[in-house]
């Protein structure tokens, strides 16, 4: 399938016409892509009143003082101090809304052959909105609770700059090459995945995205409607 940008406005192909091939695996960023809220960690920091102390942790992580696992555990410790329990996180998850056009997209993928799922630097526990669509994989960081529902730790799986490695490991598990992957993301945490995936879609680009990223992807969807992505995938898979 040759994608002619003029024919599918408002989808853009920054590098000119793009030849698309049916993917063997379809992966999405979660925050800001499949759902409206842009960051799961940020959401919980704001909800539980730890934004400022969370910023300090982020600075220490960016400065190489602490690992990503330590950054996750540090945030969790701040929430635990405030008495956050599983029910609080579940309530936050219930407020997470799918992006416009996500429901038909996910229904289509649920009924399609290639495995699909999320690669997210966010929090797995906030992805319950996806449960009815039964994604095949969910790579994200996870909160841990003890028997009585008290927050007591985290499992770090996807760091902010590691989606390329995560995607390669996932592909090895499924016996395919990263070039067979169709990847959709919206922000700077997706740049590494854009570099290795076969077909890449930048969806409703985050304002904080560095200039030049658009030149690295195959397709840009400017309006916030995942129906554009559904149309692309239908063209490839139907």
């Amino acid at each position, binding site marked *: 399938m040759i994608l002619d940008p003029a024919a599918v406005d408002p989808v853009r192909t920054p590098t000119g016409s793009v030849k698309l091939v049916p993917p063997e695996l379809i992966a999405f960023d979660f925050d800001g892509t499949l759902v409206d809220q842009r960051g799961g960690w940020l959401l919980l920091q704001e909800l539980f009143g730890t934004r400022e102390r969370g910023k300090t942790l982020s600075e220490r992580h960016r400065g190489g003082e602490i690992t990503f696992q330590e950054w996750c555990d540090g945030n969790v410790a701040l929430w635990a101090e405030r008495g956050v329990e599983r029910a609080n996180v579940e309530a936050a998850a*219930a407020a997470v*809304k*799918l992006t416009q056009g996500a429901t038909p997209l996910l229904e289509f993928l649920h009924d399609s052959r290639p495995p699909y799922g999320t690669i997210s630097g966010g929090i797995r526990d906030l992805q319950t909105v996806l449960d*009815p669509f039964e*994604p095949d994989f*969910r790579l994200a960081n996870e909160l841990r609770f003890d028997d009585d529902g008290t927050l007591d730790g985290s499992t770090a*799986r996807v760091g902010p700059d590691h989606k390329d490695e995560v995607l390669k490991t996932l592909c090895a*598990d499924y016996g395919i090459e990263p070039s067979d992957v169709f990847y959709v993301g919206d922000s700077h945490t997706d740049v590494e995945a854009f570099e290795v995936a076969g077909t890449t879609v930048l969806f409703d680009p985050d304002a904080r995205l560095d200039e030049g990223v658009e030149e690295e992807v195959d397709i840009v969807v400017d309006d916030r409607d995942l129906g554009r992505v559904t149309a692309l995938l239908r063209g490839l898979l139907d």
Partner: protein
Amino acid sequence: MTREPTTSTREETSPEEPSKHRAGVRDATDRDRYVVGLMAGTSLDGIDAACCRIRREEGGPFGYDISIESFVTVTYPESIRDRLIDLCEADTGRIDEVCRLNRSIGALFANAAERSLDRAGIQPDDAEAIGSHGQTIRHIPSKSLGPMDRRFRSTLQIGDGATIAFETGIRTVSDFRTADVAASGHGAPLAPFLDATLFADDEEARVLQNIGGIGNCTVLPPAPDRDDIVAFDTGPGNMVVDAIVEILSDGHRTYDEDGRQAATGTPDDGLLSEFLAHDYFEEAPPKTSGREQFGHEYARQFIEAGRERRLSNDDIVASSTMLTARSIADAYERFADPYPSETYVSGGGVYNDTLLSYLREELECPIAPLDDLGMDPDSKEAALFALLAATRLDDVPNTIPSATGASEPVVMGDVSDP
């Protein structure tokens, strides 16, 4: 001209005695009636509509024959779904939205009913009734303190029956669960009534076992009476296996496809004994379970206990798969009287070959997919509400108190005439 829809509520009658006061109800015995059943689940995806042909063949609560003429699913528009999600949340649900959506959803239900009739080639004038479950926006099975120091359960479904009746021109029965709740029941499960009607056998004891996230079963003795039927959650279905696979694969897999990973491992009896000692399995029905008991935390504990026993990942997945099979078998040993001669399985678990092979090992009766009894499991719940509507119009009590915990059988459903 504007027609004013009318809603009649149930009249006080003896539970097993037909009302003498209901006008316009023709004798339903030995004639085909077309009734549309409508169901919308808690996932808020949309509406299932089944146009059913129903014949009352004999007296007694389960003397009905049902066949499905058409089945359609209508997805909620995204804007409606978003509003429903807000409405279902304690923090964001607003009474004015209940009021508005009650009407809007009613119109969507009416549309789904019309589509199913159209698909079946049945004219609305030839349809006797619509049975609409509505959309649950609250179900509060724990008792709250009410007036006179009494404690009450409560439930609320929206999707106005009068709107459905007016828009379709078809008599509509709605608001089913409240009657069972009024009789001190949980208002759930209601499916055992359909199970008894469609699947009970005169000679053989049967169990219908659904294996979704949670396992649940309906135990049907031969030619059962209402009081003989037992229905309850057996415990974990796929929920624990799925969570374990997801944790062990670091999110790479969310389920064990066809039970392949379990097939390469060996269940560990010690681990199983430890986890089958959970209080839930000993508790007598009626009982329900969910993610609170058998969610990710339970899965993590299972993995940790497996690690302590030096089990491989494959052995842990195999053990969790066997946990589902053995908890089902144990439940039949404890609570199925008489023990079933045959078990019919539905739900996502039927795609897990290893689980089915374990179930065959553990049960002392053959198992088969529910499809073998001629019912597409996807359309079962919508068909249930067609049956409940027909029984409501016939004044036949349509609950199973042994399953819902109600004090007595009642006739569920309020009637709205067009």
